[in-house]
């Protein structure tokens, strides 16, 4: 006997007998032989045929496969997934509201239930068959036999595994020979190196490394920042040739991308001519509709000139008469003297609130022209500052309410127009509050009722 080391080398180097292979050339002979092998009590054996041979199942005693149950289970799983998926996706996670129909109804789900059941059942049949047959199994010692190559062509084989309890090299070989095969062949285990060829290993590792590149690149990009704009692999609508407001174009003769509104066009919500007193503070628009605006512009221009005139010493005296001219023009307009809407307590409260927000900072809480902004400007000796008018002078007190509304809307001297910030109904409310402020300084106590007097007395 050899030493232990030699033994281990021996098991490595020497192939072992792993089975016997008997070849037949006639299907019927194979079936007849199979019956005998089965009856002899062998268990680990098989027959190999180029096509499914009918009658071989009984001859070999093959039990019926459980595959149909696998297929049924897969089919049921598919159907269940389909119902669950459609219910969850369309009725729970992202409900589709379509003409008040119920979120979920079975009839509409049937096509997809059917399709997914068939799909999974087909997977069950195909992969179940492969799994039960233990395929793919690319290496098989039987493939070493040259004769066995004809198993897929026109020959029939019985293979007997050496692991069978009844198997013995000599007895089983004799037994197989007694079945009248063309030949009986021994199958030996493979002793060639199980290592993959060097080139294949290299090629596979190269492919593996290349396949790792995209995820590595993605991971790198995800974890770093960059100053360059992102790459638009698919631009979709990221870059559009549409025109933008501040750019130039040669599409239009005036070279602007923004288009001015067409003369006579009224923007949505800007139609005012149906309620002239409410929007303009005028009983009716003058024939020359622009007079309001022009007068205003003249007034402002004069202001501006006045200011310019103050700086350079040699400047011409300002044309003061232009301002007076403009004011005269405005005086002539038919200002309303009645509020163009019902006057309520609520409107007064609203007017007070708006007045304190927008007007009091300059005009002061009681309208004396002593708001904090104004006081601060005077303190800093701001040369261009024009002190806001007090509401309590005779001139202002006499102004018709339409004119007051006009002033709030369009401004006067240094004061800007507030039509952009304050909606017309609020401007009227402010006018109302302003009138109330004026009245509070200029009322004969005798005209008040007794309860009003006592109320005033109680107010601190």
């Amino acid at each position, binding site marked *: 006997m050899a030493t232990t080391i030699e033994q281990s080398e021996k098991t490595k180097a020497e192939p072992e007998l792993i089975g016997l292979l008997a070849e037949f*050339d*006639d*299907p*019927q002979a194979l079936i007849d032989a199979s019956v005998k092998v089965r009856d002899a009590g062998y268990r680990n054996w*098989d027959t*190999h*045929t*180029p*096509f*499914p*041979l*009918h*009658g*071989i*199942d009984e001859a*070999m005693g*093959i039990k019926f*496969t459980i*595959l*149909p149950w696998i*297929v049924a289970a897969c*089919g049921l799983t598919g159907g269940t997934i389909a119902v669950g*998926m*459609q219910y969850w*996706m*369309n009725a729970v*996670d*992202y409900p*589709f509201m379509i003409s008040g129909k119920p979120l979920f109804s079975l009839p*509409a789900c049937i*096509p*997809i239930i059917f*399709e*997914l059941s*068939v*799909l999974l*059942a*087909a*997977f069950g*049949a*195909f992969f179940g*068959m*492969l799994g*039960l*047959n233990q*395929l*793919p*199994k*690319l*290496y*098989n010692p*039987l*493939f070493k036999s040259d004769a066995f*190559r*004809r*198993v*897929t*062509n*026109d020959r029939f084989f019985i293979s007997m595994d050496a692991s069978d309890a009844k198997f013995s090299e000599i007895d089983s070989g004799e037994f197989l020979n007694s079945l009248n095969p063309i030949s009986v062949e021994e199958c030996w285990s493979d002793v060639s190196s199980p290592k993959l060829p060097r080139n294949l290993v290299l090629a596979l590792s190269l492919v593996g490394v290349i396949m790792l590149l995209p995820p590595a690149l993605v991971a790198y990009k995800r974890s770093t920042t960059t100053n360059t704009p992102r790459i638009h692999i*698919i631009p979709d609508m990221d870059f559009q040739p549409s025109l933008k407001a501040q750019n130039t174009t040669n599409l239009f003769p005036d070279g602007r991308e923004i288009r001015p509104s067409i003369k006579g066009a009224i923007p949505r919500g800007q139609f005012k001519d149906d309620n002239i007193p409410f929007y303009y503070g005028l009983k009716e628009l003058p024939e020359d509709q622009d007079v309001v605006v022009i007068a205003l512009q003249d007034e402002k221009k004069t202001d501006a000139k006045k200011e310019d005139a103050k700086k350079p010493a040699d400047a011409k005296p300002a044309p003061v008469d232009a301002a007076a001219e403009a004011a005269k023009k405005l005086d002539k307009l038919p200002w309303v003297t009645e509020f163009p809407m019902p006057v309520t307590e609520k409107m007064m409260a609203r007017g007070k609130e708006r007045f304190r927000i927008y007007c009091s900072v300059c005009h002061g809480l009681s309208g004396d022209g002593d708001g904090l902004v104004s006081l601060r400007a005077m303190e800093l000796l701001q040369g261009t500052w024009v002190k806001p008018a007090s509401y309590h002078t005779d001139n202002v007190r006499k102004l018709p309410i339409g004119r007051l509304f006009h002033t709030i809307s369009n401004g006067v001297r240094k004061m800007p127009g507030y039509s952009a910030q304050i909606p017309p109904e609020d401007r009227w409310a402010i006018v109302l509050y302003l009138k109330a402020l004026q009245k509070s300084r200029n009322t004969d106590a005798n005209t008040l009722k007794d309860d009003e007097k006592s109320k005033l007395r109680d107010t601190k």
Partner: protein
Amino acid sequence: MASVTTKPIDTTTIEVPGQRAPLVLGSPDYGTVTESVCRLAECKTPMSFYVALGISASLMGMLFGLIGYLIITGVGVWGNRSPVFWGWPIVNFVFWVGIGHAGTLISAILFLFRQNWRTGINRAAEAMTIFAVICAGVFPGIHIGRVWLAYWLFPIPNQMEMWPNFRSPLLWDVFAVSTYATVSLLFWYMGMIPDLATLRDRATGKIQQFAYGLFSLGWNGSSRHWHRYERAYLLLAALAAPLVLSVHTIVSFDFAVSQLPGWHTTIFPPYFVAGAVFSGFAMVLTLMIPARSICGIQDLLTDRHLENMTKVIIATGSMVGYAYAMEFFVAWYSGNRYETFAFINRAFGPYAWAYWIMVSCNVISPQLFWIKKIRTTPWMIFVVCIFVNIGMWFERFVITVTSLSRDFLPSSWGYFKPTIVDVLMLIGSFGLFLTLFLLFCKFLPMVAMAEVKSVMPRPGGQGDH
């Protein structure tokens, strides 16, 4: 070799009562079956193959080039204009999906009906099915405009947190066509595993040995494996049979579930399925008649096979003709003026030329198969089948375009004109189809050898079934 012949070689190719024509002609021997099928993959490739492949691959290249042009430019390169937004791309889709019905029908339904004659043609028909479905899949894929968003068709979790609408027939269509493509592929591949093993065992080149070895998954013909394999095949057939019927039913839902006159009819599902089988069988014959003589497999794919298929064509062609007539009857009987108009417009309106091409190709030409002479002469079958293919394309054109171009509102009526891109894409899709089919003929077993062997008479005359 087991080439014992007990009776004189039967060369009958035509069915006569009382005597079945044999499924395989010549000397019925397992080895010769293997030889005649494998020869194609093993012999030196003839020049004609390269010429044919060159032509069809150029057409395929043109299709891909045009798809690139379409993607870069936009769907405006097609003739799809208001009101016909479903122009040629959808016509082509329905046409190809319809053709893709024959293969699985032959494999599955004829298998379940124990029609053993299917074994000669099923492999090629299945391959044709898969290639037709690939052609069909291209068109809706590119029809969506922004193809990089095609994944929106599937319920994939996405950053928009949206899901597709499962009540839309278009989504059912996505599921139906992709399931059909997958199951057909499995069915085809599974049927091919034993035959790939045959090619593996005969292969001499290293590359062939590796490739066929890989794809035959180590098949060794074990009877225990065959047992489960046959069970799986039967189950797949049982699953694929209703699937075939469902696919074109659901394609017809794309039309029938909408409310357009001429589309909104309940006859559509059976009518579409009959039309699909009709066109599919015609396409199988169109391909197989030249292929069987070029490849020299007339013994496996006999005149009897051709004749049986022409009978299916008469049956389905008559069903289609009946459906055309019934559509008119229903349009009149319903009393719906829009429906009535849609059909009068179809037959006598601006597309009357297309309608009458369709009727003459689909209804009249298959009736020629009642004549036995035509049914048994391959070149005559071929000519009729070409007409059927043309007719079935026009059927889809008529359905899609006539209804869309004139719907409820006369002010939005229009006349559809295809662009050159439309036409070239249809031609290109044939290039794709033929390229795949030629590669299949060259590299894969064109006839199901194992199945043919199992229906051949056994040596010694025993066990024939």
